[in-house]
């Protein structure tokens, strides 16, 4: 274990520090000076401050690239983590901008603080290769999210959702910690690579438990079946920006670290989920979870009448697809995963943005309130069109390329092997099912006639601009995916995976 000076440490964690500082500054500013202003003003100021801070953090990330591994993996700074951190900050900025119009709370400063703390947690999370740091960062993230989910004191459902989230989350954190402690016991170290070298095949019962609990812990975070029960409620009842944040940024971070942990921590006991070449390990386990997620997510989404709940189940389905990358566990599949989850995040933020606008005006997110939206809010409907079709996987949008690349990487695991074909076929089939409910939403928007007393839907200029930019990004990344892909592959290259 190398010794590091504080100044070195500070230098490395500067982006995270900036974020935390920004959070504190925003809270202070809001509580001290803005108490008597309208909520909207407070939100605008707070969001601006916070976004500014995040932008500075991004600049810091880009301008000071270092290749460093602090304390054996407690904190990593290499191009890959920088990329993911920058993406997380970007998603946070978008969430902040979309929350400007919110009316669900008066506690603006606290809200922004918690959001930024969650971001800081995520940034630490993706930079960690040490199970202890992972756990702490995960807790920071989760706790912030639990509170944020309960922020809408006006509705009891918000609190109920947050409570479910907290209970589930708490239990799965316990599982995770239990697994981690077993790993420490088995290997004598908290560093993932050292754990990996210490673990031997064949599997012993303790190791199996450790793997299973780890999967449970992360499975909860990414909302995989059967650890998904919190998702529908949270997506439906948490405040719109919070749900958007959970669905986008939190997912990015969780998937990334899930991948890292499984790949770095347990490479020899990966096993294989190939058809007729089944080998015991965590890969078949993840494959089963992936299949179940795809199945359940898509099938239950069909019968939903609330758009946000539909998005929740669709999120579960997308988790299933993304877990395919984990089943493949190659560098190419990591690139595919990152591309997919990032563009998925953008699209989800966009959809939640539109849902927020509609909910604010009509009071509900039922499908019926979207009827004839294309005539009441043409620009927003066009953007919604882009987002929903991207999720459905229709070219030339980003979602299609993400799925395509994911499937290619899953099949490209070993030359000549057709091992994961069954999973890919299943994924494509489930994807076909998903088109049904996505089209139902679009049908409401474009085909159905607006209710008679409907008025044009107003949205602030800021919100509209952000949503349009998101839609443009989704289209752009779909038509020219190498823009993002190049960056990802350049980052993965030297990461030594």
């Amino acid at each position, binding site marked *: 274990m190398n010794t590091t000076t504080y100044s070195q440490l500070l230098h490395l964690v500067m982006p995270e520090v900036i974020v935390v500082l920004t959070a504190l500054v925003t809270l202070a500013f809001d509580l001290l000076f803005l108490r008597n202003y309208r909520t909207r003003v407070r939100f605008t100021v707070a969001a601006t401050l916070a976004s500014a801070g995040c932008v500075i953090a991004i600049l810091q990330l880009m301008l000071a690239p270092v290749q460093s591994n602090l304390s054996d993996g407690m904190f990593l700074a290499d191009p890959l983590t920088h990329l993911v951190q920058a993406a997380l900050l970007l998603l946070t900025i978008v969430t902040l901008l979309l929350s400007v119009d919110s009316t669900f709370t008066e506690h603006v400063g606290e809200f922004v603080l918690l959001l930024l703390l969650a971001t800081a947690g995520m940034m630490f999370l993706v930079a960690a290769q040490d199970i202890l740091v992972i756990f702490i960062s995960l807790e920071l993230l989760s706790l912030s999210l639990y509170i944020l989910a309960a922020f809408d004191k006006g509705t009891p459902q918000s609190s109920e959702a947050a409570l479910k989230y907290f209970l589930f989350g708490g239990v799965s954190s316990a599982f995770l910690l239990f697994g981690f402690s077993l790993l420490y016991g088995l290997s004598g170290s908290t560093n993932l690579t050292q754990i990996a070298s210490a673990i031997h095949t064949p599997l012993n019962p303790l190791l199996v438990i450790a793997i299973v609990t780890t999967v449970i812990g992360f499975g909860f975070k990414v909302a995989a079946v059967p650890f998904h029960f919190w998702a529908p409620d949270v997506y439906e009842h948490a405040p719109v920006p919070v749900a958007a944040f959970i669905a986008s940024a939190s997912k990015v971070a969780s998937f990334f670290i899930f991948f890292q942990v499984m790949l770095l921590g347990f490479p020899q006991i990966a096993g294989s989920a190939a058809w007729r070449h089944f080998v015991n390990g965590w890969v078949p386990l993840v494959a089963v979870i992936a299949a179940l997620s795809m199945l359940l997510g898509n099938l239950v989404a069909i019968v939903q009448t609330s758009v946000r709940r539909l998005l929740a189940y669709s999120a579960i389905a997308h988790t299933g697809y993304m877990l395919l990358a984990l089943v493949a566990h190659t560098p190419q599949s990591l690139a595919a995963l990152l591309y997919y989850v990032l563009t998925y995040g953008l699209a989800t933020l966009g959809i939640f943005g539109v849902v927020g606008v509609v909910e604010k005006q009509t009071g509900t997110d039922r499908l019926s309130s979207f009827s004839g939206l*294309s005539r009441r809010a043409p620009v927003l409907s*066009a953007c919604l069109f882009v987002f929903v*079709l991207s999720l459905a996987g*229709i*070219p*030339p949008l980003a979602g*299609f*390329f993400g799925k*395509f*690349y994911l*499937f*290619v990487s899953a*099949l*490209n695991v070993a*030359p*000549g092997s*057709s091992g994961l*074909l069954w999973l*890919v*076929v299943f994924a*494509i*089939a489930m*994807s*076909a099912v998903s*088109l*049904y409910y996505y*089209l139902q939403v*679009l*049908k409401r928007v*474009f*085909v159905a006639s607006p209710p008679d007393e409907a008025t044009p839907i107003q949205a602030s200029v800021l919100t509209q601009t952000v949503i349009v930019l998101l839609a443009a990004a989704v289209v752009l990344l779909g038509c*020219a*995916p*190498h823009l993002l*892909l*190049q960056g990802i*592959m350049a980052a993965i290259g030297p990461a030594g995976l």
Partner: protein
Amino acid sequence: MLAGTIYISFLGALALLLLPRRSTTAARVLALLTASAGFAIALTAFLQHRSGELETITRIPWIPTLGIEYHLAADGISLCLVLLTGIIAIAGVLFSWNIEQRTREFFSFYLLLIGAVYGVFLSYDLFLLFVFYEIVIIPKYFLIATWGSTRREYGAMKLALYSFIGSAMVLVGLIAAYVAAGAKSMSLDSLAGYPFSLHFQMLAFPLVFVGFAILAGLWPFHTWAPTGHVAAPTAASMLLAGVVMKLGAYGCLRVAMTLFPLGLGPWGFHLLGLGSWRDVFAVLAVIGIVYGALVALVQKDFKFVIGYSSVSHMGFILLGLMTLNQIGLSGAIIQMLSHGIIASLLFAVVGRMVYDRTHTRELAALGPMNLNKAIPFAAVTFVIAGMAGMGLPGFSGFVAELMILVGAWHAFPVLAVCVGAGIVIGVVYIWRAMQKAFFVGDAETSAPSQLPPISLPERLGAVLLIATSVAIGLYPQMLLRVIAPALNSPLFDGLRKGGWR
């Protein structure tokens, strides 16, 4: 330059959305101009193209890490189909002149669909082809769900899901092939030249073929077609039967048969008298021909008659593809054009000329209206279209069906006889529908109902389509001269080695 067809259509679609909301006339005119421009480009390229050999139009790297390029190219077959698209695009706009509700959105989706169809026919990189193929599904859904008639939401969803499932199957096959070939390139010639193992081809071929054939209305995956056609507004049915179903057939030829020619070879064993996928699909095609004809014979709804007749005629195309000889394949391609034109015309008459005026499609209800006196132009057009559909010499259908028949005789003599039966039934059901709809007013019972006369755009559209069918029928050589070299190109080497005659 041919790529202009795609870009102009997409630009037109975008421009239409920017028009002010109530501008119906401007929307129509813009749509017509865009469609005509696309056709003009297609026609110029067709005339300029001396031989039918492959010519690259655009080739730029797109996603270098995956070896995917934005590669557009055209050979004789693509040229013919692009020409078809152009003609039907114009006719469709003309026949939709009376759409009053949300006109600019209608034409926007319409042009989006057309642009994507052009894209499929011109793509040479399989990823690009798949992208355009998928893009087709969405505007189709909205055209039918918003402006359609009977059970439109159900019909649209059924269509979208069937198409999507079909393309999902194709995607599996494509990804598998791409990965098996080393994940280096998605270009058609590199994948076509790659020696996939026999086992792989035996599995991949039926998967990809059926995936495309669903959209082409292969029996028994055709059930979306009648429902979809009936639900769709006239222009959408014209496009659907005229062009979109041909996308499926084109995919069968261009992708499935080119990439996995060994999949057509004998299995080595026989099951129910069938010894290869080729036999299976040939039999299914013939069943489609006869079944479609028989069902069309008993329909009570005029549009359903034409819908099932589409299924029947598409069977000809698929059979032609399975003959694997020059004459059968050429016949299949000519039938793609011929049926495209004729089906469009039939749907135009039934949907636009008759249904929009009488608001009924029940043959029993149409009879007493004495339509041949009320709207004689419609009656004459239907007669001509019906004769063309029957395969009357002088029209495009005759040459196409004759070539397929001869090709089928060389390949599957027994099936060729069944096809003959199908043709005969074809005559009967067209004639029955024509009788019942237009010429029943026998006795001096009713005075002809007062119906609005056939408008100028409709007349122009009808004349355009009839003239094209007659032109192809009288001078099929103009198409054959580009198709033959295309079929002889190196791209089809695999097919040739695998038992081409």
